[in-house]
């Protein structure tokens, strides 16, 4: 069963492939959607009444925050250290954990689906994907990576099971990824895709590597022993893939 939900400023596509009664699948989709809208209400920087906005205005202290937000803040701090400062929730000035929240919320949604009995599903939050089990064809999920210059073409096709696939690129919203070190728009890499076990981290790693520019290639290579494979395209069209990238046959 498929569903596309407008939420968090993008569209989340939900694809449940389990052989379960339609009402059960519908209820599961409903649960995922309400969770994502809840995340939007609580963590959006565009909503004045969100927990994040209230923390920004110092109306509440970190110790007053929900366990979820404290988790998000700690994860952002860990990622800042792990990425040498290139994943920076404060890159634009005030706290903006959106770069972590989206991936994390979909990771949580996928875990909740699995708990509820959906072990075969694929969630795509605006281009960041968490896939579990097999597709309706009984095969690993086929995930295309958008071509960085041709919107209607793919640069790679992956076959994944129980994997997250996140892509950061400068082609969709212009120069919106900044190198936090220089405060200049990132350049050198046009698109970075990271494949790994956790969408929150794959998303953050892809963003950090893009911000690093071409030095991000060496950094991506360093991630492979930890189970994070990658595919990146430079500004001038050179493509780099790690050896364990799960490309479709």
């Amino acid at each position, binding site marked *: 069963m*498929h569903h596309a939900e407008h939420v968090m400023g993008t569209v989340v596509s939900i694809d449940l492939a389990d052989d379960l009664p339609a009402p059960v699948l519908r209820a599961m989709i409903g649960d995922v959607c309400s969770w994502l809208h809840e995340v939007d209400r609580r963590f959006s920087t565009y909503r004045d009444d969100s927990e994040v906005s209230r923390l920004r205005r110092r109306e509440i202290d970190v110790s007053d925050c929900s366990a979820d937000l404290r988790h998000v803040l700690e994860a952002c701090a860990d990622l800042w250290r792990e990425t040498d400062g290139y994943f920076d929730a404060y890159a634009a000035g005030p706290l903006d954990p959106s770069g972590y929240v989206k991936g994390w919320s979909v990771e949580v949604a996928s875990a909740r689906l699995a708990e509820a009995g959906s072990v075969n599903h694929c969630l795509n939050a605006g*281009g960041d994907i968490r*896939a579990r089990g097999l597709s309706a064809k009984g095969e690993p999920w086929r995930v295309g990576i958008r071509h960085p210059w041709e919107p209607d073409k*793919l*640069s790679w096709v992956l076959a994944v099971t129980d994997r997250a*696939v996140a892509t950061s690129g400068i082609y969709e919203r212009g120069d919106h990824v900044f190198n936090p070190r220089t405060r200049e728009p990132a350049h050198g890499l046009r698109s970075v895709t990271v494949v790994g076990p956790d969408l929150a981290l794959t998303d953050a790693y892809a963003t950090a590597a893009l911000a690093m520019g071409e030095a991000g290639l060496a950094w991506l290579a360093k991630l492979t022993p930890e189970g994070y494979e990658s595919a990146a395209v430079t500004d001038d069209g050179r*493509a*780099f893939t790690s050896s364990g990238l799960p490309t479709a046959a």
Partner: protein
Amino acid sequence: MRRSTAAAVGTLTGAALIVGVRLSVSAPAVPAAAPPAVDLAGSGQDAPPSKKPSGKKPSNSDSSDADADSSSEGAAGGTGLKNGIFKGTAVKNPYGTIQVSIRVEGGKITAADATYPTTADSATINPPAIASLKQSTVQSQSADVDAVSGATFTSESYVKSLQAAIDKANA
């Protein structure tokens, strides 16, 4: 620690070559004229004023205010270079991370070296690791897929995306 100076860096060989050439031409100019690859300070504007180079050095000498341990600094030599071993900031480039070091004795550079870090952590970003990334040119293809990964689209640009077409086909 990483400065965005990697662009100017060639390979390890290249960097070592630069040092080597400079060494043979004019020793005092080495740390000063060496480009970002051998940014000995790695700290240019961050360095406290007291560590700025003296007037004897070329003006373009961000890189000469080396962040050497004070313990390794000896008496200043006639050329304005301090004795000791000076390690540059580790600089990342597409081929890995390099760190350049020079030894100054009697105000002259007597040795220059460039090394890849060999600690367990950084060993994974040495040349073999970057070589493990396969290089090609970006391919363009159309294929039947279940989902498309790409830079995050907005609610507005979604309608033009491949993912929207997939959702429509499955609706």
